[in-house]
């Protein structure tokens, strides 16, 4: 089957850019996983949904707001009161659809609809603060939590996947615009765009 194309196009320019020279403040990359699913529970069924997702992905997922879990193969984050964003391999959509019955909730395949961009490095919090009005300090936004927010018109789900690392899921059609803005914001601290 054909390769899935990145939406970044020519806006993706690998290498070092901007900044004062003493190494990049952040590293920027596209990390869209093979599968992205949105799973939503009926009222009162979020726990059951979390269990079903855990069973499929091997993650240990709780129903706590904003909480998530990450493994080498998969990740899942709560993104709304009854909703999770689940990422994984190519087989995920079919397995998740099978595991989540209509009595628990529904799943929607967004593998092509969302693009994940990663910002990592010592100045990641600083650069993100230029774009998002959420508190990114570690105490307020710990590792393995997610935030749904937006940069102007661009809706974004931000997952903290490491002390200095965030994965930002944006709508595919906005990915190039957002990438450009991310690069622009990172210019002050210097960035490396990497594949």
């Amino acid at each position, binding site marked *: 089957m054909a390769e899935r194309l990145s939406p970044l196009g020519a806006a993706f320019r690998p290498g070092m850019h901007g900044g004062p020279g003493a190494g990049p403040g952040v590293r920027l990359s596209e990390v869209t996983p093979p599968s992205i699913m949105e799973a939503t529970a009926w*009222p009162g069924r979020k726990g059951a949904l979390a269990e079903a997702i855990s069973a499929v992905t091997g993650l240990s997922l709780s129903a706590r*707001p*904003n909480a998530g879990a990450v493994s080498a193969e998969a990740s899942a984050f709560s*993104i*709304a*009161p009854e*909703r999770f964003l689940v990422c994984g391999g190519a087989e995920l959509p079919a397995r998740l659809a099978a595991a989540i019955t209509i009595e628990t909730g529904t799943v929607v395949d967004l593998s092509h609809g969302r693009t994940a961009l990663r910002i990592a490095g010592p100045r990641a919090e600083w650069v993100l603060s230029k774009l998002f*009005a*959420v508190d990114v300090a570690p105490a307020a936004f710990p590792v393995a939590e997610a*935030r*749904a*927010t*937006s940069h102007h018109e661009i*809706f974004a789900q931000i997952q903290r996947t490491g002390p200095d690392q965030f994965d930002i899921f944006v709508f595919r059609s906005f990915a190039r615009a957002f990438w450009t803005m991310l690069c622009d914001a990172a210019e002050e601290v210097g960035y490396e765009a990497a594949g």
Partner: protein
Amino acid sequence: MLISCPYCGPRDLSEFSYQGDASRMRPDAASTDIKAWHDYVYNRPNPAGPHREYWQHTAGCRAHLIVTRDTLTHEIHEVTFARAALRAVGGRP
């Protein structure tokens, strides 16, 4: 103004969409009482003081919230999920 979304926590006003007065009562779908429909669609109490109103956290979890806010001071007294609250009373606030 910051609104404390019960799911996302306190967020900037710009993440929310105002959906207006939360005291309006939609007539039964089959009702042909034009007066009642007119009141629902067009009339508002528009109080100066505490106001129960709907906000959607459009740029966040997308849930609708019932916010009690003072229209004289913009102080927010209470925020709850709309759907849960309305389900609890059978859709009739």
